[in-house]
């Protein structure tokens, strides 16, 4: 199928500028190194000659008559007294010098050979492969530069050396640019394709400059400071240098000064021309400003991160956007974002005055542009009349403009609560990296949002910054609200579960609130409930004349009506509850009857309760539930209090003894294994050598040691321990982290093997050669709390380094993989009938995903959750495994 493109670029061709062409496109021959005279007028034939374009508004260009925004600028030129080398072509000049004969100008290869190469070029030309052509050119070059006696004129050539940066020497004798130019002029037109030049557009001698183009003034504008002082662009400074030296060189040459002086000036001209192009040429001291700052010349303008390409062309800046540090705010809804008042005054929404918003906008204009100290009241920065003229609103003219306001005017209104904005954090790896939020203007200087929204943005608050974009049209706002709002992105298309959920302290807090259904004194209970908007309080229980609330009753308040659910919590089978009931979470008629709320209930991407609420009641209700949940958690944990410290990992003396015993025992077991191995008592396991067999057996013993230490640690550390509470509820860390702090850190491995590299036959000089025991290969029997001994410390650092390297390698590799995927798939679309089509309307998939299922609406990869449907329709009795 043929695709029609109205305009397309077929080919780009780079060519050299000939001296004639430079003169032809020049509007003025620049001869004076001065810019402006004392009265501030540009000097004729100077660097700021008005024929090279205009930079001051109001003036007209002498060449084209255009004003500032019409005149594209025009080049001028400088006639150089002596030719100089163009630094950008140094490599090419060098290769041409060494592959051509200095006498006759032919490529130093026999005629037959040249013909052969020509045929190859013609052949590849038909197949249009630039890489192959370049290969042939460099082949010709390397072949020809070896030849000493020219096969055409039998002249004995000498070797040319490049003395960096710009000097060429032939057997120690300096080649002047003039001589090089003369040689290049001799090169035949027919030989050029083999040098890599297209004879239609380029001649080698054009790489030596005799005429110098002066860029238009709008390329190097004069900056007028507030003090009225003028400051010239770096390029202009450099051009001044070039002209000055050029003048002196011409004078000296015409006067017939000594050769030495002329050569010095010539070198100096070469230096200035070189730094004009590239001020970071290796071997050349960079030209500096008076202040000592090095000048930014042509190459510096283009190159690197701050260069034209990466900074200006690929990195355009956006209006109506803001960026600042982020911080948490649990009292905001997940759909909200806190915007600092300072930013809100700068960010505006343009509204057209209609009958419906007339009074509102009038009031806003009356508010003026607003002051910083005030309580935030949105104001107006600018107003546009119907004819498009702009009025800046100040405190003085605010009420006056408000009275004059008419229908059809445009009002640039400051951000107010409830505006829809897009919020984004880089790297934007999935669609949840950019979501729509409702604005809530707040004091101070950071963007704030609910902690549950950290997950989709992958944000934390260690200095992260985020971007915000204010939507400008009704259509954009409507679309963002329907498709991009945080609550609409609850279910991740990656795994079909809620990507947002309670984290860290939310889980700890609600776990403490519901674990073993604690009694909470009346006042404290009311305090907790005051964080959430509730219509009633649960029935208090009375014990010994005192009134209490039950923790689970308080939690039940935030459940929507009609929740019936039973699932396994994190405590699961290994419940620490003596009756063994905490692990099963049962909710009947929106009352938490049994179980402790933990990660499996409300955690991100695995919260069963959260998932249930979302699917049954929809996104809005889900968002409300999560909002209430975070608030309730804040209330609950402010009552219970929660802290952890290193003494959480204190274990009693007997436990310490047991742990030491486990460590020693394993080490001995390993020694025994090694003994057996040496005695030849170990048989080979299938697919393994004898050494591998031993290794795997040792690894097994040592990993058992860690498991055992984990068991001992968890036996002595109970649910009265903060760290254990966090690990068991799934808030943070796991029991293995705990065991490593309290008990044994365990084997340190590299690529899944015990550490074995280092010195000859041993890992470190602390061990005997040939020692393959537990300690000699990276087993760490100390705990983090006790501290590691030097060899252990080293092994631990080695293992840790592997982790860091892994992460670095993995992120770059998966990033590139994802980039290739995105580029391949970016313009596929799903048509209305569910087919996936590309831009040519070819079918990629007959039905989206070959099953037509939206993965974010799927249930753990299945299209329909049958169990849930049965339960909802026929009640709890029938559904599920129970």
């Amino acid at each position, binding site marked *: 199928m043929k695709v029609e493109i109205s305009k397309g670029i077929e080919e780009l061709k780079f060519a050299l500028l000939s001296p004639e062409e430079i003169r032809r496109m020049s509007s003025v021959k620049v001869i004076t190194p001065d810019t402006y005279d004392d009265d501030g007028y540009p000097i004729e034939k100077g660097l700021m000659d008005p024929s090279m374009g205009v930079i001051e508004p109001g003036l007209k260009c002498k060449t084209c008559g255009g004003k500032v925004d019409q005149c594209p600028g025009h080049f001028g030129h400088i006639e150089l007294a002596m030719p100089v080398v163009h630094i950008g072509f140094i490599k090419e000049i060098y290769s041409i010098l060494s592959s051509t004969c200095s006498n006759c100008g032919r490529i130093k290869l026999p005629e037959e050979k040249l013909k052969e190469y020509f045929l190859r070029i013609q052949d590849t030309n038909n197949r249009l492969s630039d890489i192959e052509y370049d290969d042939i050119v460099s082949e010709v070059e390397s072949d020809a530069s070896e030849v000493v006696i020219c096969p055409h004129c039998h002249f004995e050539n000498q070797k040319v050396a490049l003395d960096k940066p710009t000097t060429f020497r032939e057997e120690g004798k300096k080649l002047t640019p003039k001589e090089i130019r003369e040689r290049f002029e001799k090169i035949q037109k027919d030989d050029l394709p083999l040098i890599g030049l297209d004879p239609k557009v380029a001649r080698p001698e054009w790489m030596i400059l005799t005429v110098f183009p002066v860029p238009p003034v709008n390329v190097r504008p004069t900056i007028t400071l507030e003090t009225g002082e003028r400051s010239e662009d770096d390029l202009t400074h450099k051009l001044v240098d070039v002209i000055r030296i050029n003048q002196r060189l011409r004078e000296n040459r015409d006067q017939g000064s000594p050769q030495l002086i002329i050569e010095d000036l010539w070198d100096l001209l070469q230096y200035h021309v070189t730094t004009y192009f590239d001020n970071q040429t290796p071997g050349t001291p960079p030209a500096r400003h008076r202040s000592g700052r090095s000048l930014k010349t042509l190459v510096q303008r283009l190159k690197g991160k701050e260069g034209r390409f990466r900074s200006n062309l690929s990195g355009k800046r956006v209006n109506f956007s803001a960026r600042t540090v982020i911080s948490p705010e649990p009292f905001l809804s997940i759909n909200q974002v806190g915007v600092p008042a300072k930013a809100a005054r700068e960010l505006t929404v343009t509204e057209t005055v209609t009958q419906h918003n007339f009074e509102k906008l009038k009031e806003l204009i009356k508010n003026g542009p607003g002051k910083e100290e005030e309580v935030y009241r949105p104001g107006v920065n600018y107003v546009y009349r119907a004819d498009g003229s702009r009025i800046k609103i100040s405190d003085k003219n605010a009420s006056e403009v408000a009275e004059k306001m008419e229908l059809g005017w445009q009002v640039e209104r400051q951000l107010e609560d409830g505006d829809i904005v897009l919020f984004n954090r880089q790297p934007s790896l999935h669609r949840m990296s950019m979501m729509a939020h409702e604005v809530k203007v707040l004091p101070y200087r950071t963007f704030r949002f609910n902690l549950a929204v950290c997950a989709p943005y992958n944000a934390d608050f260690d200095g992260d910054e985020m971007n915000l974009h204010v939507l400008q049209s009704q259509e954009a706002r409507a679309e963002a609200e329907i498709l991009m709002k945080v609550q609409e992105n609850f279910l991740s298309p990656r795994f079909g579960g809620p990507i947002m959920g309670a984290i860290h302290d939310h889980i700890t807090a609600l776990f403490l609130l519901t674990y073993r259904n604690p009694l909470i004194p009346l006042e404290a209970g009311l305090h907790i409930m005051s964080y959430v908007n509730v219509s009633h309080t649960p029935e208090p229980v009375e014990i010994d004349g005192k009134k209490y609330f039950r923790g689970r009753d308080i939690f039940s308040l935030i459940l929507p009506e009609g929740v019936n659910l039973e699932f396994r919590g994190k405590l699961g089978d290994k419940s620490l509850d003596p009756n063994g009931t905490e692990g099963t979470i049962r909710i009947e008629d929106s009352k938490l009857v049994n179980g402790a709320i933990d990660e499996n209930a409300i955690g991100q991407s695995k919260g069963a309760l959260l998932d249930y609420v979302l699917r049954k009641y929809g996104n809005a209700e889900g968002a409300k539930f999560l909002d209430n949940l975070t608030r309730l958690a804040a209330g609950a944990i402010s009552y219970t209090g929660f802290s952890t410290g290193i003494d959480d990992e204190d274990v009693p003396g007997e436990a310490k003894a047991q742990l030491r015993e486990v460590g020693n025992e394993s080490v001995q077991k390993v020694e025994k294994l090694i003994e057996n191995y040496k005695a030849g008592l170990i048989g080979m396991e299938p697919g393994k050598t004898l050494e591998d067999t031993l290794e795997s057996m040792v690894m097994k013993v040592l990993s058992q040691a860690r498991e055992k230490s984990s068991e001992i640690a968890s036996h002595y550390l109970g649910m009265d321990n903060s760290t254990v509470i966090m690990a068991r509820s799934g808030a943070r860390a796991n029991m293995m982290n705990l065991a490593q702090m309290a008990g044994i850190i365990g084997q340190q491995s590299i690529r899944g093997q015990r550490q074995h590299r280092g010195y000859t036959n041993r890992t470190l000089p602390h061990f005997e050669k040939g020692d393959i025991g537990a300690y000699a290969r990276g087993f760490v029997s100390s705990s983090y709390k006790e501290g590691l001994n030097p060899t252990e410390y080293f092994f631990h650092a080695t293992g840790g380094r592997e982790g860091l390297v892994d992460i670095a390698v993995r992120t770059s590799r998966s990033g590139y993989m994802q980039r290739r995927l995105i580029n391949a798939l970016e313009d596929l679309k799903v048509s209305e009938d569910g087919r996936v089509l590309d831009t040519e309307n*070819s079918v*990629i998939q007959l*039905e989206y995903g*070959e*099953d037509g299922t939206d993965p974010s609406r*799927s249930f753990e990869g*299945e*299209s329909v959750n049958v169990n849930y449907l049965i339960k909802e329709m026929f009640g709890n009795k029938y559904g599920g495994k129970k």
Partner: protein
Amino acid sequence: MHEMVPEHWLIPVKEEEKILKLLGVAKGQLPKIRKSDPVIKTLEKVEGEIVPGRIIQIVRKSRTRGIAKIYRTVIGE
């Protein structure tokens, strides 16, 4: 053929039109498969030479769908 390679069937020329109508697409819009593809070469042992332009039905197993039927047109090379 390896067990992981899904079933490929050659659609009789008579039925081609019916299937295209059912799918609501033109032949040129369908995904392509090369005549030199190992699957086509194997299929040719059963069906005789397969000329470019014929339609192949591929039956894949799907966890969500049971079976998913895909169609491709054979192209040259």
